[in-house]
């Protein structure tokens, strides 16, 4: 049951996509809200009295303007994308709601990994070597050329290249290719893809809330192993780069002309302290970083999202809302995505050393539905997350790393 009491002097927001955590955060916050989601959510919303407008995001046609008009008629001030797939919808809707046509173009830029890299390059941001591939031959050629550039001789082990879908979130469709043979394992339907050279370095992500074109809060998320584990705040070793990272983010905000909301970019920092831009998303990160931030700092990251999107939000409110980065954190919160390591599994069995570790908080693993584990193509999707919380970032880092060697499904 919605028990919300909203402040009518503040904005009216539309949440694009279905996220129970986001809805609950909104319901507990002081902005009027409405959920825009596919019609399968209707019964649930009616039953629980959640404000709701049905919309099928997969259907793109000449009636698409209807949703913008509907929301405008309702008096909605801004649409907030919750998932990668709703980013351009938000751009399109906001361009109508705010009468700023550039917002739609901006959102398209943020949806296409190749376009976004070119734009970053134009803005003077360093990116690795990248190219679009339309078929397998393109991939083989790129792999060869990258390794020629690196002055490798035939027979030397190749440096890998990375393949990513243009428009999918995070690790979905992300593959690492080392030899031309491996190219054959890519299904045709995954093309076109974006190819990138491999950068040996430290990959990390940033969550930055932007208000009036300025950074309101900047978090650095440390990846222990990409696709497996992340924790916040980062170790002092990575926080050492905070100044430099902040400058990079400011560059990004300027280049992409971002006035408000939330961005989630990924970077590499190489051994010579050079930052390479990977990609940027205009929606909450996967891997439950929002939940980790709440655990570490105590503020609700979804409410922060709503606040920074709301055009009626004041400078003062933003200042009062966010804690001070790193120093205000009560500890370090991390999570680990479990992949079964065996080919055949029959049950979930938490290792005692994990379960009894004093940093261990909870897990959201469920019993296996099938006995045979599908072979992981690309980076795949994990089977559930483990959550940890503790005082020492290095203990956290090593603990998360160690989980990779354990079996959770046997």
């Amino acid at each position, binding site marked *: *049951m*919605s*028990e919300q009491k909203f402040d009518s002097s503040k904005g009216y927001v539309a949440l694009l996509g279905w996220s*129970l*955590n986001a*809805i*609950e955060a909104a*319901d*507990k916050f002081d902005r009027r809200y409405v959920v825009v989601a596919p019609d399968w959510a209707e019964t*649930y919303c009616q*039953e*629980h009295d*959640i404000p709701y407008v049905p919309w099928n995001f997969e259907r793109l046609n000449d009636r698409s303007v209807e949703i913008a008009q509907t929301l405008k008629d309702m008096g909605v001030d801004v649409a907030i994308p919750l998932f990668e797939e709703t980013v351009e919808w938000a751009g399109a809707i906001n361009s109508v709601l705010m009468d700023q046509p550039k917002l739609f173009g901006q959102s398209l830029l943020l949806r296409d990994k190749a376009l976004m890299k070119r734009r970053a390059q134009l803005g003077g941001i360093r990116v690795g070597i990248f190219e679009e591939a339309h078929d397998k031959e393109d991939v083989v050629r790129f792999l060869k050329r990258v390794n020629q550039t690196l002055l490798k001789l035939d027979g030397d082990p190749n440096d890998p290249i990375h393949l990513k879908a243009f428009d999918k979130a995070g690790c979905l469709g992300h593959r690492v290719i080392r030899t031309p043979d491996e190219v054959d394992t890519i299904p045709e339907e995954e093309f076109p893809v974006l190819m990138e050279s491999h950068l040996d370095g430290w990959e990390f992500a940033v969550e930055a809330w932007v208000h009036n074109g300025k950074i309101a809060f900047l978090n650095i998320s440390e990846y222990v192993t990409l696709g497996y584990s992340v924790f916040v705040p980062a170790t002092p070793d990575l926080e050492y780069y905070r100044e430099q990272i902040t400058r990079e983010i400011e560059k990004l905000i300027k280049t992409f002309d971002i006035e408000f909301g939330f961005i989630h970019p990924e970077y590499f920092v190489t051994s010579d302290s050079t930052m390479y831009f990977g990609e940027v998303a205009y929606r909450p990160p996967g891997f439950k970083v929002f939940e980790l931030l709440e655990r570490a700092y105590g503020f609700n990251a979804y409410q922060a999202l709503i606040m920074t999107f709301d055009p009626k939000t004041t400078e003062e409110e933003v200042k009062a809302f966010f804690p001070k980065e790193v120093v205000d954190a009560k500890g370090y919160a991390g999570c680990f995505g479990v992949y079964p390591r065996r080919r055949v599994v029959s049950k979930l069995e938490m290792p*005692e050393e994990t*379960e*009894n570790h*004093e940093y261990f*908080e*909870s*897990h*959201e693993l469920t*019993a296996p539905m099938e006995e045979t584990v599908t072979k992981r193509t690309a980076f795949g999707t994990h089977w559930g997350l483990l959550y940890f919380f503790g005082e020492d970032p290095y203990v956290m880092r090593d603990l998360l790393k160690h989980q990779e060697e354990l079996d959770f499904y046997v």
Partner: protein
Amino acid sequence: MSNSDAGSPAPVVNFDKLVQRLDDAITALDESRAFAKPGKLPRLFDTVRRVLLQPGGSVAIQERAEWIEKAGVFWGTDWADPSILLPSLTTHSLQSPYADTVIIEALSELRLLAVARGDYLHESVSAEQAHHYLTQVLAINLNMLFGESGEAEREQGKLALISRGVVQHVAKQIGYEHVIDRLIEEIWRILQQRPIQVNSVRQMITQIALCRVDPNVDLGGAGQGAERLISSLYGPTQACREDPGIPVYEERLQSMDSGALQSEATGFARSMHDTGLVSPYHAAFVSYILEKQDSMLTEALGLSSTGRDCLLCYKDLVHELIREGVFPETAQGLYGLALLLERGILYQPPVAPALWRQARLSICAEARERIQLAYGYQPQPKAWLIQGVLNMLGQPLGVGQGNNPTCQSARALSMWAYNDPDYLLQMVAWAARDNEIIMHFEGQPVSSAASRGGVASEVTLDLDPVSLVVVPHLDRIYAEMGRMCINRPGDPHEWVNPEFHGWSAGRGFRINVDVATGQLEDLETFLRHFYASYHPYYNGNQPLIHPQPAGVAVTDSAARFIGWHAITILRVTLDPEDTMRVYFYNPNNDSGQNWGDDVVVSTAGKGERFGEASLTFEQFASRLYIFHFDPLERGEPAEVGVDELERVIGRVHRSWGRDRLPAEVLQAEPPREG
């Protein structure tokens, strides 16, 4: 407890931190919006599980019980309303291999413990009710207090530690004395129904006996009433009072004079008829006198003049059955034999020769294997099967379906044993010897060997020996007959029941549910017809001749529909208080059930014979949905009083018919006041 589980919980856990995590998880649920609560449960459940694995975990949960419940952990589940919880279901959930099931049950128990202790004033359950409920939970889960871990617990792994820990914690706080007395009552209640399968009763009695001699368990004044139960198994007579073991007892028999033997014989018989349980010493005794003084058999079986006559007429057969079938392990067969003789069914010409066949039957490999899996290798499968046959013929209403969805087959076995014993023996011979039963459906042969599978995917082993061998066949035939009716309109029981159970099941058929929609259909005519067929005041005072299959809608203690169930109507007559009652057989293992809305099935004290269940005619009619009748005897719909009819219909509408009202009924009935 303190020494048995020592060392298993890993000591490295920081319990204070863990409890802090628990508080965080409860807070998260508590502060959550109702629509988002389900998402917060996995974390809470998992944290509770970890807390309960630690020493002191139960206390930590009990202290937070009120907070946890108010945070909404039980919302939308049966546990939300403690007044409808059934103690008997706790065993299943506490032994579940699914962590969440174990945890929610454990939470509920600890919450009720807080209520029972007066620490938590609950809005829907009083401290006394909670105490009473927990006592029953303990009685039913006594094996978790004392017993060895069974197969179910092995499957459960570490979760079994949680269930045991919680049950032991509850027992410590409630007090063992309450448990034992309650358990003893429960055993007597079950024994009054004279089930054939008494393994679980034997186990419970054994546990009480062990508990009484265990110096670590302080029973206070409790457990005195267990004397008769324990002695019925372990020392029913003077010469085996202290449970000396069979070899010692056999030695003692050697040196007894006929007076001493006589007193042993009457001692055994008294104990057996008192409880329905047979001591292994009893079997040893009977084997001994069979060689030396077979005249004492009458006393040893406690026979009346009827049984004695029958024994004398068929002495060779009875001796043969005892020699082939009665061993200390199969002693229970003596009780069946005694009742079989009392029933006089040996005077039906085919029964004695059929039993001769039974005594010499060669058993096929498949049937042997099932019997050996269930009962072990000693004595031979043939002996177990003879024991089963004796018990089934002696206690036709003691057949239980075990933990199987095969109420139809159990009902058929019971009906034949009651009504058509030589037919039952034929079925046993076919199944045990030939591994195939062929029945006919409207002239077409239906073979159990050729069937595509039964209602039950696998028939479990917790059955009496006859059911163990015959039910898999019957179940397949029953399912096959059902398949042959697939394209017919209406309910397949109309054709299957008479073909499956035999000619005496009425070919006339009435159902009050529309099969296609599940809605109630013409309830009033259905009831009038039922009264006209079965109620002595409306059918010309004709007692029921053959037991008739019928279907009931079983409801839970909150009167909610659970499922359709097969029963047999046995008699309709006035009870000792001059109320018209229906006496029926329920293949369920324990007929004493609360069906809600004050409909409580009685098993003793209302004129029931052993194994019968009973309800007043009105109450029974309100749960009935299928009955059979002889179409040639069909009378006019009974002129049942409007008041009585309304009461029955009201009960239907308040229970299983709640969501089955056809639209026109709703329109036809103006809203009533109150």
